[in-house]
């Protein structure tokens, strides 16, 4: 029996679990996928928004600004990449300047620091590749970029280190409240808990309705992206937004924390909660629209495209609250953009609600720091030389494009909540995320996984249970 079961090991579930691990609680995170960071949290812009977009007075606005303020300290404590590079909202028509002014005023009301409306010359000086049609822009120096995978993984790892259990391949099928306890039927058996945190992303409405009659509807809003090679990463130095429209913040162009250039997302509401497929229309639109506010994007340098689903709630608001008609069910739904930006504050808020319900004592053993995977590329040659002599695996490059060594791959597998799949390794140490897109490294990475996990090559998966990389041996079917 658990005190708290958190459903979902995405960014919201992971930050919540980590904040709850500050207390003497028996906590379990259940996740239907094979790893943390497998849903919305793995396919988004990786932007830390300044906080001027959300309606003044909304929970979204409050948590966005708070999350943004907490991000730097969190990134240091948990060792994930975050850079406060600033953002620009580009306005190309005089008639639209009032829209910028409204955003500026809203940002002020939300408590966003340092906002400025800049004229054409100032914008062009800041970002030479902005369209010449720019007339003004909203500059937000507090905006930033984060590695969404590492951030999610870092919070989960730290939660695990502080005693939180994680169960993967565990999908919640049914929940009943029997007296004061939740009985949670999963694909891996029955679990019991005093309190349930619903951080199920695009499925948060389904989980919610297993227990509550209060309305909640989450629509998967698909966003497609193009990722460009690192040689295009300096095309812009800040996150460049178009003016916001009906479906949100529009197509942005941004450098990533790893030095690539990202163009996206589109925004199309769909029905399928698993619909992370890209579309011909979406990809074509990005190739065109990316250029609406940024000039000469070298589209020939696209190395991959992908799609993610935002958990869009009907009222476009975070639904973070204890359910009124079900004691000890805490919803954390509708975590669409700016969910990643708000995540440190979301975790804190959800934890506070749980703590109020269960009144636990502090966990005096809590240790809030997490050390990331050692990156030899950041060491001096002398230190790298010493490292190689201590552990020769750091001299064996597995991924040529990103220059990732066997030592890093092994660390990604062996550490707490370590990788068990190729995608898990990719999200932890970027193997396969470079310009050849896993062409050279795949056989090597499979061999390392096979050796480290003690499984046959045929059992190595790209992601979930059905994602076998190889189906047999030579001549086996002759």
């Amino acid at each position, binding site marked *: 029996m658990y005190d708290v079961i958190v459903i979902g090991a995405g960014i919201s579930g992971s930050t919540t679990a980590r904040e709850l691990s500050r207390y003497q609680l028996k906590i379990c995170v259940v996740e239907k996928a094979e790893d943390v960071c497998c849903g919305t949290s793995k396919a988004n812009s990786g932007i830390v928004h300044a906080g001027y977009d959300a309606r003044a007075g909304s929970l979204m606005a409050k948590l966005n600004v708070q999350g943004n303020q907490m991000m730097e300290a969190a990134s240091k404590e948990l060792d994930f990449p975050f850079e406060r590079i600033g953002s620009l909202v580009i306005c190309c028509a005089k008639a639209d300047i009032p829209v910028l002014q409204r955003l500026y005023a809203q940002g002020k009301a939300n408590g966003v620091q340092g906002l400025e409306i800049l004229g054409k010359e100032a914008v062009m000086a800041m970002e030479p590749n902005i369209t010449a049609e720019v007339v003004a822009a909203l500059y937000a120096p507090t905006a930033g970029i984060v590695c969404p995978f590492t951030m999610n993984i870092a919070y989960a790892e730290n939660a695990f280190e502080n005693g939180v259990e994680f169960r993967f391949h565990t999908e919640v099928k049914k929940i009943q409240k029997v007296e004061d306890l939740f009985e949670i039927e999963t694909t891996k058996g029955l679990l019991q808990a005093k309190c349930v945190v619903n951080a199920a992303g695009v499925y948060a409405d389904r989980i919610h309705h297993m227990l509550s009659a209060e309305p909640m509807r989450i629509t998967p809003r698909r966003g497609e992206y193009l990722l460009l090679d690192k040689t295009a990463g300096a095309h812009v130095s800040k996150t460049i937004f178009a003016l916001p429209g009906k479906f949100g913040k529009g197509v942005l162009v941004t450098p990533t924390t790893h030095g690539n250039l990202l163009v996206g997302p589109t925004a199309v509401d769909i029905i399928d909660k698993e619909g992370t497929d890209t579309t011909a229309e979406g990809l074509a639109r990005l*190739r065109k629209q990316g250029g609406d506010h940024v000039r000469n994007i070298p589209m020939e340098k696209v190395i991959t495209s992908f799609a993610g689903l935002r958990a869009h709630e009907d009222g476009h608001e975070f639904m973070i609250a204890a359910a009124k008609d079900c004691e000890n069910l805490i919803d954390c739904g509708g975590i669409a953009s700016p969910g990643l930006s708000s995540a440190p504050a979301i975790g804190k808020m959800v934890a506070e609600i749980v703590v109020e319900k269960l009144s636990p004592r502090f966990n005096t053993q809590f240790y809030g720091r997490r050390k990331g995977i050692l990156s030899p590329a950041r060491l001096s040659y002398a230190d790298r030389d010493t490292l*190689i002599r201590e552990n020769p695996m750091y001299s064996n490059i597995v991924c040529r494009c990103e220059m990732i060594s066997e030592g890093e791959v092994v660390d990604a597998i062996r550490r707490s909540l370590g990788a068990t799949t190729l995608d898990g390794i990719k999200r932890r140490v970027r193997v396969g995320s470079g310009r050849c897109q896993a*062409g050279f490294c795949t*056989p090597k990475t499979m061999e390392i996984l096979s050796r480290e996990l003690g499984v046959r090559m*045929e059992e190595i998966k790209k992601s979930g249970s059905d994602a076998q990389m190889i189906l047999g041996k030579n*001549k086996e079917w002759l």
Partner: protein
Amino acid sequence: MLIYDIVIIGGGPAGLAAALAAKEKGIEQILILERDCELGGILNQCIHSGFGLHIFEEELTGPEYALRYIEKIEAFKIEYRLNTMVVDICADKRVTTMSQADGMCVLQAKAIVLAMGCRERPRGTLHIPGFRPAGIYSAGTAQKLVNMNGFMPGKEVVILGSGDIGLIMARRMTLEGAKVKVVAELMAKSGGLQRNIVQCLEDYGIPLRLQTTVVEIHGKEHITGVTLACVDEAGRVIDSTREYVSCDTLLLSVGLIPENELSLKMGVKLDMRTNGPVLNDKYETNISGVFACGNVHHVHDLVDDVSKEAEKAGTYAAMYVKGGA
């Protein structure tokens, strides 16, 4: 710091031929740097025959072709370092390498021959919509898994692109027990050698569909099929021709890109059309004493041509070193 007359980056067919040519011109201090565990480069996984018809007037397999050069490298006692990655290279011809044997090591070259070869174009460059499941491989990656590791990506295969690697892999997958359902080619003509179309497809009854491409990938975790469609003269998809083909494997043979990341690092100018360095008639880049040859220069159809080009580049590198001495 160790000083070499010529440092050759890459121990594939280009690097080996360049080294031998330079040696024959009397250069003593030559070093080949190879990141893999053996010399020969991509030839080692090309176990089919058809190499060497022009240079040796014999039909050799890839490893046999490589061995002819490796034996000479050994006979001439040309120095090479395996499992050695070049991590940095500067315009002043200082090369930083990393390996288990030598740790981080800085070398000074009088001349450099760039012979890093090429890589395959990945799916992402094609803008094929759909999911991103397991079971999609570039043809060369599949070739490595099958020929070097003995593992089969799947049983039912669709191949996109009729370049030589795609054709060779159509035959290999068939010989190893898979069913290759179709090879689709976007262009009106295959980019592969005629002999490969005959020997790899026609001999095995594998259909080649021209002006046809993959317009969608199905299957969320593992590929379950693709949608094929014809394209018109302008390359536009003709929607009425969309057709679902089930498969558990999609191999992509859609072009090769010279690997010039190191070249860029040292300031070598590239030709935006070929993605290879701009060379003068001595195979020299814009940096004096830095030469390039083989598939890092431009993608060749035949390895024999790579060897011939590399011999010239090695010869010019030798002349550069002698002239400068």
